[in-house]
């Protein structure tokens, strides 16, 4: 039995298998509409999330399975003080697989230690969000046709942005990757990620404070939101929230085939005028999220067809 807690739990080969299966699902979704008949996914969401939870539920329903779960800690036994370990032991007898989101870092790892069903980390605080990474990789692979030889710009909150950390960890395993890290001083990428992941893998990178000047170099621009819940201090949040905004004028500087990605929800970091630009693929990205979760569920449940 395999869990997915960190994006690095999957080897490049396993990742490729999941992405290939997802692309097959995109081509012929009907072929997979009954492969999880009689299977249940439990969505254990200790903090609110519309997109990720519905995406998991849509994925399981598309495969012919069913869903159960809770969408906030208040509506679960956590409000009575039940531990993650106890909750997962019980849920293991109700469902065949589970997706867990928790505000505390490492909670899904605790669940995996006690679970008898596969556990998928659906986001643990500012730490990991591996299915977002799978979504991002599928988007790049499907729209760019490759995962190597890319200059990828990350913009906004690179300190607390878990999607950024996870995607960097995944991309360093491919050839000819360049990173451009665009953020204010206070939201720069954590030291350990720079030293132990980017530099250790000899990935060329640069850190800049202005988006305009690097726009022409980028194959991918990955935008992020500055999230209030990641700050201890409201003043810092207010000061930094509008740091980088992508608008139509900046898009004029970009390559014709650059992709603008965003894990969503977007607040104001991408002006709505950019939405109609064909290079803006963030809504398409959300759609890919369902396909890749379908492929992941099939893989972890080892159902026929994968």
């Amino acid at each position: 039995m395999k869990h997915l807690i960190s994006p690095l739990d999957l080897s490049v080969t396993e990742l490729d298998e999941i992405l290939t299966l997802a692309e097959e699902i995109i081509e012929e979704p009907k072929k997979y509409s009954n492969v999880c008949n009689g299977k249940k996914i439990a969505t254990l969401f200790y903090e609110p999330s519309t997109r990720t939870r519905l995406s998991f539920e849509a994925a399981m329903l598309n495969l012919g399975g069913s869903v159960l779960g809770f969408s906030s800690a208040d509506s679960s036994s956590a409000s009575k003080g039940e531990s993650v370990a106890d909750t997962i032991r019980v849920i293991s007898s109700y469902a065949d697989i589970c997706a867990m989101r928790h505000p505390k870092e490492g909670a899904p790892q605790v669940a995996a230690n006690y679970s008898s069903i596969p556990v998928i980390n659906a986001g643990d605080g500012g730490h990991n969000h591996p299915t977002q990474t799978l979504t991002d990789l599928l988007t790049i692979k499907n729209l760019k046709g490759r995962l190597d030889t890319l200059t990828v710009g990350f913009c906004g909150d690179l300190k607390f942005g878990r999607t950024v950390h996870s995607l960097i960890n995944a991309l360093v395993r491919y050839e000819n990757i360049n990173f451009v890290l665009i953020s204010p001083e206070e939201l720069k990428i954590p030291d350990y990620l720079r030293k132990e992941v980017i530099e250790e893998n000899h990935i060329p990178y640069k850190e800049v404070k202005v988006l305009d000047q690097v726009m022409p170099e980028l194959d991918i621009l990955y935008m992020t939101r500055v999230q209030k819940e990641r700050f201890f201090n409201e003043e810092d949040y207010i000061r930094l929230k509008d740091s980088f905004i992508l608008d139509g004028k900046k898009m004029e500087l970009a390559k014709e085939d650059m992709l603008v990605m965003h894990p969503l929800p977007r607040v104001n970091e991408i002006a709505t005028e950019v939405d109609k630009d064909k290079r803006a693929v963030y809504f398409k990205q959300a759609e890919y999220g369902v396909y890749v979760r379908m492929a992941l569920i099939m893989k972890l449940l080892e159902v026929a067809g994968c």
Partner: protein
Amino acid sequence: MLNIGGLTTGIVIDHIKAGGAMDIYSYLNLEKLDCSVAIIKNAKSNKMGKKDIIKIEGNLDIDLDMLGVLDHNITVNVIDNGSIKEKKNLQLPEKVVNIIKCKNPRCITSIEQEIPHTFKLTNKEKGIYRCIYCEQSFKE
């Protein structure tokens, strides 16, 4: 310069990061020992500038490898009959459970007390241990 007498039998824990001696003292539960213990703080060191040293008299039965988890620069000399009998090389264990605690306020271990605090050695050269749950380094 402060002078502390040499040991006939015992161990010298040397090259402790300046200011770290009391942590080692507590971890080894030295307050419960009946023998002489000398704590030397801020001793001059060519290599480190300043360092702490602990000298403990007598034979001790403790897992000294765990000292490397707390501070990987530490060296341990075993003294017998007034001379160094053995310079111990501390082997860093791959995994430690409930020896050190995760200090990350965002870690699940900060709210669920029964979870064993477990760390994995992720960089042998630098002696870096990371929490298996949140991946925060022990020294960060």
